[in-house]
């Protein structure tokens, strides 16, 4: 049976190495500062106390006044899980958080998906492009202010003709 790290105790354990990183803790969750994400994650992966080899999931939630990026971590050696969260984008200005792709490659596609659908910029991502929708799609659909179908319709004048699109995507050959 996997055990989950208690949030407060995980926060204490992280504080020993990185005293400034923790914002809050409660239940199974730990909230950390966006700037300290790479340091904390590297610690969680490499330190013998944590050994989180597997990044289960990266996602984000839109809480209107801010966004919350959620990391679910799994440790195979300790058979343990932890939830690390980070609040970004207060006041809905440009939401930005450092990427963890150089720590876990598994974040690659997931961070692209979060950028595509939630509009959170992952600083340092090697291939920071949309994944599900096409480049030029207006807005990010999973945001709560992305309200209607009309918003996703591109006006006729801004539409690109298919051949121009093909020219941009590739050479259209194949």
């Amino acid at each position, binding site marked *: *049976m*996997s055990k989950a790290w208690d949030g407060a105790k995980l926060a204490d354990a992280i504080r020993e190495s990185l005293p400034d990183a923790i914002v809050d803790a409660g239940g199974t969750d730990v909230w950390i500062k966006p700037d300290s994400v790479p340091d904390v994650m590297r610690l969680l992966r490499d330190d013998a106390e944590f050994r989180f*080899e*597997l*990044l*289960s*999931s990266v*996602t984000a*939630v*839109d809480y209107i006044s801010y966004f919350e990026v*959620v990391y*679910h971590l799994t440790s*195979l050696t300790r*058979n343990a899980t932890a*939830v690390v969260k980070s609040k970004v984008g207060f006041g809905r200005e440009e939401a930005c958080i450092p990427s963890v792709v150089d720590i*876990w*490659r*598994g*974040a*690659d*596609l*997931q961070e692209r*998906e979060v950028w595509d*659908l939630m509009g959170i910029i992952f600083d340092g991502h090697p291939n920071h492009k*949309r*994944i*599900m*929708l*096409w480049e030029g799609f207006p807005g990010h*659909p*999973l945001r709560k202010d992305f309200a209607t179908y009309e918003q996703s319709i591109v006006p006729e004048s801004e539409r690109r003709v298919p051949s121009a699109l093909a020219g941009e995507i*590739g*050479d*259209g*050959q*194949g």
Partner: protein
Amino acid sequence: MTTQVRTEPITVNLGPQHPSTHGVFRMRVTFDGEEIIDVEPIFGYLHRGSEKLAEERTYVQVVTLTDRMDYVGSMLNNQAYMLAVEKLAGVEPAPRGVWLRMIASELQRIASHLVAVGFLIQDLGAWGTPLIYTMREREKILDLFEMLCGARITNSYLRPGGVFMDAPEEFWPAMNEVLDELPPRIDDLDDLLTDNDIIFSRTKGVSVLTPEQMLDASITGPMLRAAGVDWDLRHRDPYDYYDQVTFERPLHTAGDNFARYWVRVQEMRESIKIIRQCEKLIEPGSVRPEHDDVPWLLRPPVGDAYAAIEHSKGELGFYLVSDGSISPYRCHVRAPSLINLTLLRDMLVGELLADMFVSFGSVDINMGEVDR
């Protein structure tokens, strides 16, 4: 005097309308002769915005959306979603319902692996014969689902706290008949395919991934077990009543296409064992909690929950956030199909064109789940 022949790499778009991309996947591949030197996967041709749609539906209505994510593993999707909802709402499930959904999801795992194996052989270029053999077996399992819930592919069988309907009387003998027939059929498959020199020489040592590489890339499921990492959530973190059944985790050490294929064939046998045990352990009773405890319009308390199961393709997780209303505030799917493709480029670069779709098929993805 030597003449230099000028050669140049050739870039080809494979997909989205290609017969072997398991749906509408697209890869922009650069070849040097037949050898792959670069791969760029392009997703999104089947994106339906399931996560956004879930925010507009009640908790029970979202079940229909999960069916349509991985449409060859609907029961498993239902199960993962229900675990998340139950955790979020603090629902105590009804025992008979849990046993029934374990049976359903193990049947679905067999069906899903049958599809994976069949299409892998199809990608190897067999003329449909093994595929149709595996599909024949899957068909029987789909018939069982039809008896359980009236649907074959998009089941929507599970409800918070159990299932919506008890299995009919005639389900049990029918299931036993299927389970009796399956092991010899899987042996047939073994005879036809596993011992086949062509399949062996085509898949051995192709697209090898090490455990470290895969853990780094969050790859889970049969792919990970094919490299010898004994990580199966049913065993390491038993959800439902998996702690009450015994089963083995087939492990291979090679981590190549053959190992991935082999692990899937063995897992089907283990699933049959699990179903047999479930059948012994199941007891009469209600299949879901009383309506007063778990109403159709569920209003879980404010909070979030992440629940994951061992899907036939890897760890399938649902992350639900509730704001106390009748529909989820946020529903995120940790889709194994998408995440297992993280290392696609590493798997394919250096291999030949012919092995490309075999490696791709050995990941066992489902575009409905990749793009959601």
